[in-house]
């Protein structure tokens, strides 16, 4: 999104050879990750989420497909694993995060996740062979897309009912803090909806380990629950390239200025999306609104300005609420979220956005 906005607005400079924009991506395929949730319920297939990276990028942007070994700040280059050095005057780090189920002992062997394409498809098959029992959804910290756990839980209950397994099953939801969601209006709403749909809840539950033999999970707070099918929202980490580059903290999150989005202590490095250490949602919309600020500042600075646009912490999330309805929530650093009544129209809009995403990536929307 940043590079497409730059390419459009700096077209004259690019054509004159004064500016060059390079995107480094580890794959030549662009993957729309929100569809993993739907893949788990067999409502989407990988092909729906894939487009060639090249097709998403402006033709004025150079694409390098490969693995970045590390960022070498003293030389202002990105060193690739094949030895190639890509120099930069400005660097935008949007490396995202990765699920780290291995950080919870027993989880990889005993549970499922849906935060990668491969794991979502594995969960799809586990759900299809599920004969009923305790389906436990446990939420760890930090995680990407903070509403996905709620959506998965409600969609799982709908899915079990539709397959005639509702009576033979118990859906269980655990959450790390003392309410059902970090956003208070969402938690209040879930407080009414979960009991009404017979979903068992446990708060102040931070999964510490999984016993795949006994089929139990135990929390940091000392509570143990049994399961027949375990679906974890795994803890996430920043990418390993951040660790190799020594740019991050212990979780590979990059210390970032909350308004300028510059890496702490680095004037020419911007960070956006999940890669930052900012206390805001790791969500696509966060990266979207941050990308607008980073692109504006880069364009301004390249043209002699000071790059003083500020990010206000804006986040916007759709929330699937089951029963073919959805709602949304938005907030920023200064304004708390306000609840909105779920409706079928918002659900349809969310489905439409799954297609409109590609306009967003193109920097159009």
């Amino acid at each position, binding site marked *: 999104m940043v590079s497409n906005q730059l390419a459009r607005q700096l077209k004259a400079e690019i054509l004159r050879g004064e500016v060059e924009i390079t995107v480094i991506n580890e794959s030549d395929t662009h993957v729309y990750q929100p569809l993993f949730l739907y893949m788990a319920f067999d409502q989407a297939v990988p092909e729906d989420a894939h487009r060639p990276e090249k097709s998403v990028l402006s033709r004025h942007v150079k694409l390098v497909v490969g693995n970045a070994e590390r960022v070498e700040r003293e030389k202002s280059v990105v060193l690739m694993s094949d030895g190639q050095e890509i120099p930069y005057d400005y660097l935008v780090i949007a490396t995202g995060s990765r699920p780290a189920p291995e950080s919870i002992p027993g989880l990889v062997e005993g549970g499922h996740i849906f935060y990668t394409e491969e794991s979502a498809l594995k969960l799809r098959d586990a759900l299809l062979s599920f004969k009923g029992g305790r389906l436990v959804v446990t939420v760890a*910290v930090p995680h990407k897309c903070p509403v996905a756990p709620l959506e998965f839980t409600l969609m799982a209950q709908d899915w079990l009912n539709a397959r005639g397994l509702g009576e033979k099953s118990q859906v269980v939801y655990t959450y790390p*803090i003392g309410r059902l969601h970090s956003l208070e209006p969402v938690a209040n709403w879930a407080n009414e909806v979960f009991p009404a749909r017979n979903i068992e809840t446990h708060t102040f539950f*931070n999964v510490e380990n999984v016993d795949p033999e006994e089929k139990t999970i135990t929390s940091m*707070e000392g509570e143990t629950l049994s399961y027949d099918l375990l679906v974890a929202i795994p803890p996430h980490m920043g990418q390993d390239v951040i660790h190799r580059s020594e740019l991050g903290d212990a979780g590979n999150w990059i210390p970032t200025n*909350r308004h300028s989005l510059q890496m702490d202590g680095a004037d020419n490095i911007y960070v956006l999306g999940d890669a930052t250490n900012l*206390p805001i949602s790791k969500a696509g919309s966060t990266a979207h609104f941050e990308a607008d600020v980073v692109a504006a500042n880069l364009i301004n600075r390249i043209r002699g300005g000071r790059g003083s646009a500020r990010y206000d912490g804006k986040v916007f999330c759709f929330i699937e609420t089951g029963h073919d309805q959805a709602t949304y929530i938005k907030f920023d*650093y*200064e304004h708390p979220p306000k609840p909105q009544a779920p409706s079928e129209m918002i659900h349809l809009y969310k489905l439409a956005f799954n297609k409109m995403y590609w306009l967003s990536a193109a920097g159009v929307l």
Partner: protein
Amino acid sequence: MSAAKVVDARGSFCPGPLMELIRGIRQEPIGTVFEVWSSDRGSAKDIPEWVKKAGHELVENKEEDGIYKIQVRKVK
């Protein structure tokens, strides 16, 4: 004694100050002292409540100019 590790969670509605603290507790070693900064009055209550449940140590809980600063030591 080394300085507390600041968790600047001002203006954090999601994931929120407590989850930011839990993130720190998960990734830093035993003995680390965290100082959570929150603009939400509720943090002064819900962070100590969780700290007690999870068996960590509440070091300090104060308010300075509308910012709640809660220090917690990771003990296990």
